[in-house]
């Protein structure tokens, strides 16, 4: 019955066919096994019952692994976290691969440009001192200061949503910059100067135009712009020879 189904409009691209990319509609029943239905479950329904050739990424289905960021009905979302009922436009849910990243097949994008930028900011704790016998102490306040940045699941939604580096794979992007600030703000890290040099340029923080699309698109509610603005201030302070 048509009223019990909705149309899942999926971005399709098959690299082996030589055909142009486009959208394809599938009729999917609304009710899942548990009453609600997430977009990820709907994709599985299509895979199992309608088109075994559909390609998409998945893992945890609970919004922590970061596999299934997609562009769903005009917004950047995790497919697993999005209820079909919330993404309906009329009777249609539109799902496409993350914009701006090269598409490998259907909803699977090449994450290489994203990871390349992630690695550029030295995304690991650097501490020159010898490790103590026990833990390095960190006050609960200092710990709280990095909570937001450390919550990032590296899903690349913000990276894909950011218009600042839209045609520029060298722009570090909000995810990598937030990762950089996660360590700049960590009281245990000693490579602040080095990191600020890595990000303090026009392929880094100064490419950010404070558009806040990253913030809007983040499925974990992280404010990437905050991290970026904090680093702009730190770099200017450093340029002016002030104490960091």
């Amino acid at each position: 019955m048509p009223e019990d189904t909705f149309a899942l409009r999926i971005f399709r691209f098959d690299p082996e066919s030589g055909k142009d990319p486009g959208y394809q509609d599938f009729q999917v029943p609304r009710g899942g096994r548990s009453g609600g239905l997430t977009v990820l479950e709907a994709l599985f329904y299509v895979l199992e019952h309608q088109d075994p050739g559909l390609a998409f990424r998945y893992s945890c289905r609970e919004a922590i692994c970061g596999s299934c960021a997609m562009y769903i009905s005009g917004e950047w979302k995790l497919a697993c976290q999005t209820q079909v009922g919330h993404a309906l436009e009329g009777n249609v849910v539109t799902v496409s691969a993350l914009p701006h990243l090269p598409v490998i097949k259907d909803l699977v994008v090449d994450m290489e440009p994203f990871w390349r930028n992630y690695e550029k900011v030295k995304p690991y704790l650097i501490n020159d001192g010898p490790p103590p016998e026990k833990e390095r102490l960190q006050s609960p306040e200092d710990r709280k200061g990095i909570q937001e940045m450390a919550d990032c699941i590296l899903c690349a939604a913000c990276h894909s949503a950011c218009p600042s580096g839209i045609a520029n794979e060298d722009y570090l992007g909000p995810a990598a910059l937030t990762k950089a600030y996660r360590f700049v703000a960590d009281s245990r890290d000693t490579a602040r100067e080095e990191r600020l040099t890595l990000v303090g340029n026009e392929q880094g923080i100064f490419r950010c135009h404070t558009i806040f699309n990253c913030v809007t698109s983040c499925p974990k509610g992280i404010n990437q712009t905050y991290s970026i603005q904090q680093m702009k201030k730190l770099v200017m302070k450093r340029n002016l020879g002030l104490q960091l």
Partner: protein
Amino acid sequence: MSTREGSWAWILQRLTAVLLLALLGAHFFVLHFVPSETYITFSGVAARLQGVLFWVIDFGLLVISLYHGLNGVRAVALDYWPRVDRSLSLALIIIGLIATLYGGRALTVFIRGM
């Protein structure tokens, strides 16, 4: 200016923005709210520009707005064509210099009142 850096371009854009707000406010006020003749004429403008304050405002506007505007164009262009930086910057600097000189010469014509 190389893309490796850019913090100075960034801070100058902010500083010129603040200056422009002040200068433009003055410019607007002078042109539209200070009682003067209804229509702008050469002699009217020339008379006004005899005052040093107005001279500073107009010349400052010329230089600062050109910097702010052309640097803005550069920022826009680099979003879409990240690899044109060097040639683009050179082109913008040349445009800026020509416009400053040409506009500056016009101002001196007014000041001399000829």
